């Protein structure tokens, strides 16, 4: 999506995207998308899970479950493709991440998938 001030919530995005090239996604903020809230979605088995392009600013990614992106068959067949649960190419600090569950990411935290600190 390239739109602005939108809400994407409670959706399931699964099995979307081709692995060649590996630029597709389950949910994407592309172009100069701004002011959007992406929350409480389930995003699995896509080429990339949530993809945030370099021009996207001031978006919030909150409480999504973003795991298994890409599926292991795709990762096995194309080990050179860089696809992850969350790919954040936006400038540092211009995307707000809150309590998402993910395993692999670029420039985005996945704290909910790590062991709880004692």
């Amino acid at each position, binding site marked *: 999506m390239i739109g602005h001030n939108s809400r994407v919530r409670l959706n399931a995005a699964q099995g979307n*995207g*081709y692995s060649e090239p590996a630029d*597709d996604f389950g949910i994407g903020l592309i172009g100069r998308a701004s002011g959007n809230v992406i929350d409480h979605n389930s995003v699995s088995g*896509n080429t990339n899970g949530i993809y945030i392009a370099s021009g996207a600013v001031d978006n919030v990614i909150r409480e999504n479950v973003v795991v298994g992106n890409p599926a292991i068959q795709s990762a096995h067949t194309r080990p050179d493709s860089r696809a992850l649960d969350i790919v954040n190419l936006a400038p540092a600090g211009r995307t707000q991440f809150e309590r998402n569950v993910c395993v692999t990411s670029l420039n985005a935290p996945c704290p909910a998938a790590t062991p709880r600190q004692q």
Partner: protein
Amino acid sequence: MSTRPIAALAVLAATLSLASTAFAADRVSGNLTRTYVIVEDTDLIGDVTCDVGNNTPCFSFGAANVELRLNGFSITGRGDAVTGCGGAAFAGEAGVITNNMSGVVVRGPGIVQRFRGDGITVGGSTHARVEGLTLSTNCMSGVRVLATSFETIIENNIAVRNGSSNPGLLCGGI
């Protein structure tokens, strides 16, 4: 016997009939060969297949603040059942476009599938809603919101197996 009560009943019946017509939703099913322009609340009453021209949407909103309700039925385009594409992507060949109309709604349950463009394209609209749909096997994205749209709500949808293999064409579920 006076005819006045009968005349009054006839007037009442005619009034009710007119009122019913004024508020009835449009109903659609079957095969579409031209873009269906939505100008009032519209219900699918059966599955729809779209055999419209290349780069042409199946449904296009022609009025603000109206709904397209799928009622559990499907809207199916010309794409391949496995890949969704059947060759190149056709950007204008979407299942539904909002067409600069604001306050419009595409409401499920129902499935939008096999379009050689997006399943739903939200363009030039404010306060559009896409909810309760399954978007499957479309050649570009399940739902695409263009830069000309603001305050769109995309809620409770399932987007599966959408995407394009064209380099540089960033696509996916939503």
